[in-house]
């Protein structure tokens, strides 16, 4: 794609573009096409955005095992409709809009396969819609996600051995509550409560670290 900009405009460096001076009175600016034979630009976006997008979808009340499916659907729809995306605007926010619509469809279909609890998901979706109407929060999301990941890493290291083992079983080995309960010689309700307290502790630790970082 070739875009011509006026000399008066200061040419902004594009990550994959270059500038050349041609024609009197304007610059010819080569911009990495959104759709190219190797889809490099789009794949880079997938790499950058996938983690935050999956987190976002999970926070809309989608079952953990369906998050990947919906995130992939989101990217494929985004790819199909890439011409509608205005380059230079927030790609992450655009993806989240698509994801919200996908989740809305899931709720409408009363899909128990993908949605944890329709009423809860509806509530969370409304909240997400409301947040999306504040563009400032959209811009900050990517950076916020990076900081949260860093804080979580640090906090995980502080967990006592049993908690780490349960995190390992639940999130790394993807074991159900019942299976972990079998290993820990307790029942699934207890494991759910342990995980609840564990997440609360991690949240407290993360808030502390993020507070320190921002302070």
């Amino acid at each position, binding site marked *: 794609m070739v875009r011509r900009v006026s000399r008066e405009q200061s040419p902004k460096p594009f990550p994959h573009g270059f500038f050349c001076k041609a024609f009197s009175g304007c610059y010819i600016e080569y911009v990495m096409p959104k759709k190219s034979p190797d889809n490099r630009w789009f794949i880079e976006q997938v790499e950058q955005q996938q983690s935050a997008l999956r987190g976002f979808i999970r926070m809309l009340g989608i079952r953990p095992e369906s998050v990947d499916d919906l995130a992939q659907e989101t990217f494929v729809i985004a790819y199909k409709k890439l011409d509608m995306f205005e380059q230079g605007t927030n790609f992450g926010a655009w993806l989240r809009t698509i994801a919200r619509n996908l989740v809305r469809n899931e709720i409408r279909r009363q899909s128990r396969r993908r949605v944890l609890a329709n009423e809860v998901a509806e509530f969370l979706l409304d909240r997400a819609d409301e947040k999306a109407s504040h563009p400032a929060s959209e811009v900050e999301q990517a950076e916020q996600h990076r900081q949260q990941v860093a804080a979580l890493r640090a906090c995980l290291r502080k967990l006592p051995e049993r908690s780490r083992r349960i995190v390992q079983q639940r999130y790394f080995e993807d074991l159900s509550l019942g299976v972990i309960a079998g290993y820990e010689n307790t*029942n699934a309700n207890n494991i759910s409560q342990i995980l609840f307290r564990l997440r609360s502790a991690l949240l407290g630790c993360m808030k502390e670290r993020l507070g320190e970082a921002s302070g």
Partner: protein
Amino acid sequence: MTRPSKPADAASSVDENTVDLRALEAAIGRIVDGEPLPGDAAIVVESLASSPEVVEQLEQHLLVDALLRDEVGYDAAAFVDAVRVMIEAENSRPAFVTRVREAIFGKEADFVCPIGPAATTGRRRWAGLSLPITLACTLLVMSLLANGIWNAAAIGEPVMVEVAAVDGTTAFAVGDRLDLRTLVLPDGAVDLTLGSGVRLECQAPLMARFEHPMRLHLSRGRIDIDVGDDGAGFTVVTSAGEVVDLGTRFSVNASPDGEVRVAVFSGQVELRSQQVGAVSLVDGEAVRLTKSQAPRRLQSVEIRSRNPGDRKAVVISEISDNVEVSKLRRFYGLVACGMRDGVRAFRDRREVSWQAEPGDVFPDDLYGADLVQTFQAERFRQDFSLQFGVSQPSRVYVFYDARYSPPDWLARDFVNTGRRIVSTGWSPTPVTRGVQPDVWGTLAIPHDIWCRDLVQPTTVVLGPPVLPERDRNSTSQFESFVPSMYGIAVQPIAPPATNIGFSRPRPSRAKPAPATGAPTKAVPVATRGRRGRP
């Protein structure tokens, strides 16, 4: 956290609030954990509407859950690969037509008019540049056309396949006939048969594409290939090199980090890589290689279980030995849930299998255990050691040649159950010396079943099968010979409970063994078999 106040006396209100709070937290916990009970959603939604703190709590727990899923072992590269293949497939259908149309109508080649003052004089300036612009457009069209043609060729041609078997995926149905160009399998397993008779056993997550019916480009995942009688020359292309079949059954596994693992189950393949040129691999050999590294020995290869209802997860992992011989490429076969009557016993003895003792039935507790296929070649090594990881509480079985006294490590760490199975199908060799053939002329070596219970995930180290020098000549009539190599099987002890609220672990599949300490004490365990020989 605040909740709606209740018109009751103070003490009962506190109690109710505490109970409500616990119930609410438990409900949030179960919803976040993905295992809600029927009333949980109602409890949470009621609180969500009245308390912003509950909303925040739910969102934060979902956030931490998502971050943890991402952080602890998520394969982001596989996700990106999956999207890449999906959009490639999306592109491949109308790619050529679209590109030509866009090239002709100039959708991709739009010039955006200058913004600001330049816009007012734009038309006049463009007027003098019509020839260069026409030339530029022509070049652009040509490049787009060339790109389209190249891209279509790179994507490959569709190949007719028939779905022969399906496990754990709804993407395919047995009997389907499909024109496949790109193959994406996010979960489960599917067996495909090509027109040439080549059978592809694909295991998720997998991404591949056909370049033509005899050439498959594997981006990621594992495919076991049986080329049959007419498929010789079938080639798998990977990022690290090409695997050309020379009439065989083999497996190729491409991981997202670029490492490719090749194992040969029968026959021979030729491996072509930039590092070493062409290398032949024969039955029982396996290597791993990357674009920049020469082939290295792959110590173990998982052999797919074909029995419906088997466990999906393998208990054994990371099998390795201390044998360091250059160009050694033997792999241990790890047969998931594969222990049963008639299963192949050793990687380097195709005809030898584990069976119940004549007149007995196959031990029930061994049935369906993960099996390690070892090598007879190792039975001579006095310094041999083999180790493997066990990922959950399990019972480890060692099948030791019953004609010999056990080596120290076996007597020390394991218990002799007093039961036996046999390795049968031997041709007369030094290892069967002294064994009397049965009425059909079959040679069978008896193996004592030794076992050891592991209460937690751990690494198991086994020693050599051969007796120490000092113990020779004092054990049996076979003292001057070396025992057969032992076999190994591992059975998980505690099958997982599946329902929430389940309070006690279910009884184990394997019956408990007495504490170790009396090395050769027989353990009375029932020998009722699932499948026995007549």
